[in-house]
């Protein structure tokens, strides 16, 4: 019961007592204004605008701008009529409802000349209202008691939460210290690890260079002997001409002059001079052996490729097949996937030992024990740090949740706190509505279909003097052509916590009626008044 209703009850009880004595006054005038309408004396409009003879009061013509001369007729557009309503509560109606054929006052006094057959229903209405008000009063009383418990619970809950918050804060401090310490440990361990790894890598790079150079030399020697058809230990123009692929301008004719040019202008070079020639032709040179053994076909399946001892194999594939992946993974892979680079040359990682031998560079050798030890130590430090950091994050979340809950506006005495993290449902013929206070409101079709969000917790939305009487849930699922769904929850006092109805007064704007003791107002002590009334 709202305080407003309580006042009605009081008024009702008071007026019943007073109206027992009928006081003479012009029709439609409330008792409180009786003194302005004195029989036989000129009447001054209540706004003071003019004074008229008394016989113009209620003469069915509007003389006063404020309508005060016609309290009992419909003559003034802005007048009002007072119904005494003995047995019920008195009230005002617009004077346009006098004699309009519709019974407005339960005492029938508004229809004194319209022929409308009105029944005096005041006693019945009064009885019903008293009953319902009494019932409301009982509910309010009980609800208010429950509310006190809720307030106590909320208080306790709040204290617990604050205590917990304090505990967690302490734990959190420890954790923070620990995280910082472990960070230092980690960083300390990572520095030598990094240096050792770099050393290892550098050594490997150097080694690779040496291997490369040796291979090149061997190849040159091999080519020299391949070219040196007459086995004189040197390469001549004629010998070179058999390799048309070396044609510098690739015009299809490899001339002697061109071959000579390749040999540095001489007809013949020996093995020493060939070294500089080799540098010019090695990119183009095709082994005679390969030419004969391998068909010109390039698009061979992986199986064959593997069998083909092609020198360029390992260089071509990474470029052609996996450039993107390489780029993406570059940084990540740096440390962990040192041998991945080779796997990715496709196809399989199951390389045969001899295949491995043929590889230009092979894989980087495993870390030496010393380096591996440094790595293991750093990893351990990292794991410990990560674990501590994760724990801290969890604690942080806890703190945040607690802070949120503690700072939530659960009403002046946190009486609405008990609704937090609860959900309430109402089932209608079509839908199940679900309200999780301070969280969200949703709707799910009873017979299949997905849930629709009718709004997330927004704010308290009641009028200024009763802000906790309405809740607003906003920004739900958008409507076609319309706004995002939203829900207004109207709270009324009751002894239970329950959803009583849901409607959609406007498209996608829902209205839910929700009963809770938390909204119950303190009932005024009515017992005496009620008791007094019954004696009448």
């Amino acid at each position, binding site marked *: 019961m709202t305080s407003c209703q309580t006042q009605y009850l009081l008024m009702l009880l008071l007026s019943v007592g007073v109206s027992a004595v009928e006081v003479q006054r012009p029709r439609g005038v409330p008792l409180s204004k009786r003194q302005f309408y004195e029989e036989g004396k000129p009447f001054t409009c209540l706004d003071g605008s003019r004074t008229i003879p008394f016989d113009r009061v209620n003469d069915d*013509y509007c003389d006063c701008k404020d309508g005060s001369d016609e309290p009992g007729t419909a*003559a003034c557009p802005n007048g009002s009529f007072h119904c005494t309503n003995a047995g019920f509560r008195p009230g005002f109606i617009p004077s346009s409802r006098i004699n*309009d054929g*519709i019974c407005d006052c339960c005492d029938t006094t508004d229809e004194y000349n*319209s022929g409308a057959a009105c029944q005096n229903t005041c006693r019945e209405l009064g009885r019903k209202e008293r009953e319902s008000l009494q019932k409301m009063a009982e509910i309010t009383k009980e609800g208010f008691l429950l509310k006190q418990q809720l307030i106590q619970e909320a208080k306790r809950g709040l204290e617990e939460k604050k205590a917990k918050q304090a505990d967690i804060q302490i734990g959190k401090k420890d954790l923070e210290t620990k995280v910082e310490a472990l960070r230092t440990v980690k960083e300390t361990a990572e520095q030598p690890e990094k240096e050792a790894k770099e050393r290892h890598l550098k050594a490997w790079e150097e080694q690779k260079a040496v291997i490369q150079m040796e291979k090149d030399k061997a190849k040159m020697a091999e080519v020299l002997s391949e070219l040196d058809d007459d086995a004189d230990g040197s390469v001549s123009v004629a010998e070179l001409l058999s390799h048309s692929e070396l044609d510098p301008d690739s015009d299809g004719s490899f001339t002697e002059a061109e071959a000579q040019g390749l040999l540095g202008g001489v007809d013949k070079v020996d093995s020493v001079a060939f070294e500089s020639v080799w540098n010019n032709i090695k990119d183009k040179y095709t082994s005679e052996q390969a030419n004969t053994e391998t068909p010109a076909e390039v698009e061979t399946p992986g199986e064959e490729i593997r069998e083909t001892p092609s020198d360029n194999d390992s260089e071509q594939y990474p470029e052609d097949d996996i450039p993107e992946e390489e780029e993406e993974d570059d940084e990540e892979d740096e440390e962990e996937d040192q041998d991945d680079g080779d796997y990715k040359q496709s196809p399989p990682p199951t390389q045969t030992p001899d295949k491995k031998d043929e590889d230009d560079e092979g894989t980087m050798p495993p870390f030496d024990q010393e380096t591996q030890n440094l790595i293991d130590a750093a990893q351990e430090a990292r794991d410990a740090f990560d674990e501590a950091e994760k724990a801290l994050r969890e604690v942080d979340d806890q703190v945040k949740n607690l802070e949120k809950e503690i700072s939530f506006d659960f009403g002046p005495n946190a009486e609405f706190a008990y609704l937090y993290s609860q959900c309430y449902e109402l089932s209608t013929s079509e839908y199940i509505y679900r309200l999780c206070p301070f969280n969200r409101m949703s709707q799910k079709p009873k017979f299949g279909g997905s849930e629709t969000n009718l709004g997330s917790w927004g704010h308290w939305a009641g009028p200024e003097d009763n802000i906790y009487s309405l809740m607003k849930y906003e920004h739900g699922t958008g409507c076609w052509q319309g706004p995002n769904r939203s829900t207004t929850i109207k709270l009324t006092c009751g002894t239970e916590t329950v959803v009583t109805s849901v409607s959609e007064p406007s498209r996608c704007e829902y209205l839910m009626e929700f009963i809770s003791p938390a909204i119950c107002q303190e009932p005024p002590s009515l017992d005496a008044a009620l008791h007094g009334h019954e004696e009448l």
Partner: protein
Amino acid sequence: MATFTERMAPVLVLWLAVFLSGTWAVDKGNFKTCDQSSFCKRQRALKPGESPYRALLETMELTNTRLTLQLINDNNKVRLLLELYRLQGNMTRVKINELKPLKPRYEVPDVLIREPPTEPLSLLSQDENGVVLSLGAESQRVILSARPFRLDIMEGREVVMSLNSRGLLAFEHLRMRKDTSQADPEAEKKEEADPAAQPEAAKEEEKDEDGMWEETFKSHTDSKPNGPSAVSLDFSLPGVEHVYGIPEHADTLRLKTTENGDPYRLYNLDVFQYELYNPMALYGAVPVMLAHNAQRTTGVFWLNAAETWVDISSNTAGKTVFGKMLDYVQGSNETPQTDVRWISESGIIDVFIMLGPTPKDVFSQYASLTGTQAFPPLAAVGYHQCRWNYNDQEDVAAVDAGFDEHDIPYDYIWLDIEHTDGKRYFTWDPHKFATPKEMLQGLSDKKRKMVAIVDPHIKVDSNYKIHNEIRSRSFYIKNKDGGDYEGWCWPGSAGYPDFTRADMRDWWASMFAYDQYEGSMKNLDTWNDMNEPSVFNGPEVTMHKDAMHGAWEHRDVHNMYGFYVQMATAEGLIQRSGGVERPFVLTRAFFAGSQRYGAVWTGDNAAEWEHLKISIPMCLSLGLVGISFCGADVGGFFKSPNTELLVRWYQAGAYQPFFRAHAHLDTPRREPWLFGPENTALIREAVRQRYTLLPYWYLQFYHAHRTGEPIMRPLWVEYPEDPATFALEDEYLIGRDLLVHPVTEEGARGVTAYLPGKDQVWFDVHTFQKHNGAQNLYIPVTMSSIPVFQRGGSIIPRKIRVRRSSSCMMQDPYTLYVALNLQRTAEGELYIDDGHTFNYEKEFIHRRLSFANNVLSSVNLAPEAQFSTSSWIERIVILGASKPSKVLLKTDDGQESQVEFDFDASMSVLTLRKPGMNAGADWNVMLQ
């Protein structure tokens, strides 16, 4: 700028489509242009020139009532039969049909209230070039020229109107399809045997063009078993620069020339989110055009219910004001002229030429053909509260209570389609509207009423009584293959009853009986929506033209469907009360004659200022062609109005004949009290002004019902000689005496109203300030302003005790507002009846109030009528008065008594206090 806007429109549409998911603008691609409508394209390709038609004077027959003669098309030798009638009331009817059509061509039934009575035509002269006929007195003649055929209607030496003067008469004769005619030797034989049918047809084979025998638009194919059948005729109007009418279009009051675009289209269509200021077809069609100049008003009524296009051109359209002035100064001898051309897809040419000469003569001429506005129950003239949808009975009760709580009157609350059980009309949703009679009784207890929607599409559902009965009686429209036509609408798959059948309409009417329409009561009236008919999956969102109404194609009757639906529904409401109660039925689709059955509204408009603005010319255009009971959805249907727009719309709507707020399902609630106390007060005041003026509004409806004159009328109707009024469409008159200039601009600080009448005065109805006529008056406005003026020389009755509903005010007294002109005279009328039955035909009070020589008197205009009222005269307010020394009232029993008065010298307003005589009595009030 105009061209720019026009050119930008498609871009704008696209822009909207992209950025607003295409929801806020008409999809023009759904509707045909003239080029996409094959007959329009064919006909429009004909250019003015010498007509191939020749009158065969030797075939002329002149009887006492009509002239007939044959016309021959010299190109294809097909003969037509011309009938010419002189009709009572200064009208001429011209009918042209094929002399021997292959099969009958459709002639529109049921629109004319009777066979128009004729007057004798007399032959003045005749020679081989033609004949001259007299149209009665006043030297009015028709000259019929033979070669080429043309008609000229003369007044003295001046041509009033010419027909076929541009040679655009065209008649696509019915013919056999070439590929089938060869396969049918009997038909050929028949043709040979009957030379009159296709006499010399072989001489000039007409070529089949695309679209003659089949036409495809989007995914829909129109099989055209009857082939081409279009008719067309041109009318020239010398001396005319202003033409009006042919609603419904969202366009200016004064019709535009159409040379640079499509013609105005008349084809009833459910246009989703229609666009303004273009000639596209809308929900209704009235093929009536008025032509006006300072000397004469005429009209053309083209009685054809098929798809119709109207082209307008003018020899002055391109001229600037300066150019016109130059013509004037230099004495250019070219008179201005407007040329009009009508094109219809099928049927015959049946034209009524209304010769005026005054605007009111034209209204009365048209009314004598198609009838007048139905006289509505008083409640229907009040305020209507609608929304798609009021959700359930509790919602209805809450809205009803809201009006009482905020002290705003209303008469009808409306239920849209959601109130039904699954869009089965004549039923109620069993959960939301479980006890409709309780709900209706609740409203009735407050002297209020309800309108529920009944659409013509019927859910195909074997558990639905209405459907089963229609199917078993074979009342559905058939598809081209003979089965029941089915289309998609609100209920899903739906059938469409054939309302062109009288037996179907009788049956439909019987469904409104209280024992048939369960849950209905006396205070439940009806709304017919979607009756174009709307077919969601049909061509142009309507019915296939090759659907069949008995022997006729839908093509022939399309524009009449909505007319028939409303006719049958209104008849149902009359019958359920045993012929006692006046029905109220609102329709969206309409045709000529629809005024006889109720109200129309301008369909699904939008909450935009431009839509508020266009509601005025749209309703003015309807009023000119007989449909007075017109309104637009207050607030706008689509979208949500801002508060200023909503308030302004209420203020404007309160001064339009049909006053109903309506809103789309997807828009937020907008009952009048939802926008803060200040705006509630503004809306309340607007609605209350409507209710104080109900006696005047009701009188206007009575007049419209008696005379066919529009209620809401353009200024030129009353000031036909004042060219300054000819294109005004931001202000209008209600009857003769109230001039309204609604505020339709956002953030307006003032409006400029043209007050007509050289020797007239106008009184601001709110301040009683007097203004001279024939001036443009700037009126500063605030949010509470509704600029309205009362004509000096008029007397307007009001009831200033505004109550909950109109019927609560029945017995209330009147206040008479007497506005004096410069001659210190005034006239007005008072009409009173029971407000809801047909007894008004005999039982009513109709009085003339006149003020002259300082005496105001009430004289009985209908002494034979019987009615008594308890209403009395509580106050007389005389504007522009001087102070009398005393005021005497003399009643019919000879008694004299003195009346008290109050004189406001600053405004010259004399208020007589409580004279008190009965409103139905004879009396004189003398100022001395």
